[in-house]
């Protein structure tokens, strides 16, 4: 393995770690908004790290270009989706933990 491989390994592992942390956050956090917080932040970082790691492997080829496309797309759509989701949830009557009183799983039965 040359240094490029080592670098890739490092970035992919780190990316994997962040992604995993995001996953744990999605399960452990108490309400929707905190879960979103956990996932969207770590997702962006983790994905980016992994994809860059892959780019290092493929050099200046069409493949790298495609990976860039993927990365760009994830970068743009991730936050948009998060925004939209939060917006919809808020409009739909889901309030963050501290703001609501009582019934927390209203969204399951009511929509």
């Amino acid at each position, binding site marked *: 393995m040359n240094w490029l*491989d080592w670098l*890739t*390994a490092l970035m*992919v*592992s780190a*990316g*994997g*770690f962040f*992604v*995993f942390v*995001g*996953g*744990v956050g*999605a*399960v452990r956090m108490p309400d*929707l908004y905190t*879960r*979103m917080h956990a*996932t969207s932040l770590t*997702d962006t970082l*983790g*994905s980016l790290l*992994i*994809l860059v*790691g*892959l780019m290092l*492997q*493929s050099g200046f080829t069409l*493949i790298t270009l*495609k*990976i860039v*496309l*993927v990365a760009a*797309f*994830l970068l743009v*759509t*991730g936050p*948009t*989706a*998060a925004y*939209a*989701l939060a*917006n*919809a*949830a808020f*409009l*739909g009557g*889901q309030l963050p933990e501290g703001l609501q009183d009582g019934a*927390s*799983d*209203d*969204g*399951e039965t009511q*929509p």
Partner: protein
Amino acid sequence: MMFAVGAAAVTITMMLALLRALLGPSVYDRVLAVNMLGTKTVLLLALTAFAMGRPDFIDLAITYALINFIGVIAVLQFFYSRDLRKAEERAAKSAHGGAVGPSQAGPQ
């Protein structure tokens, strides 16, 4: 091997996301989980494509990313249109001052 480590992390995260999707509790949690799973699948595909020695299959990852986005938008649009309909129904209820049958919702 190095891709496998990343792929393993991503798969485990997928499992966690799936857990969230199954647990809910609200529909928004499920959407969040779906979105998360979609992103993870993109990563998993990219990683395994490299691990299998076929990096040209990154095309698939692009498709997944696109489709995932469209899926989430579709869900949101579903919410919005439903919320709108609910608002209409509420308006209709207050206007007629009574229950409205399931088949004739909306001001007509």
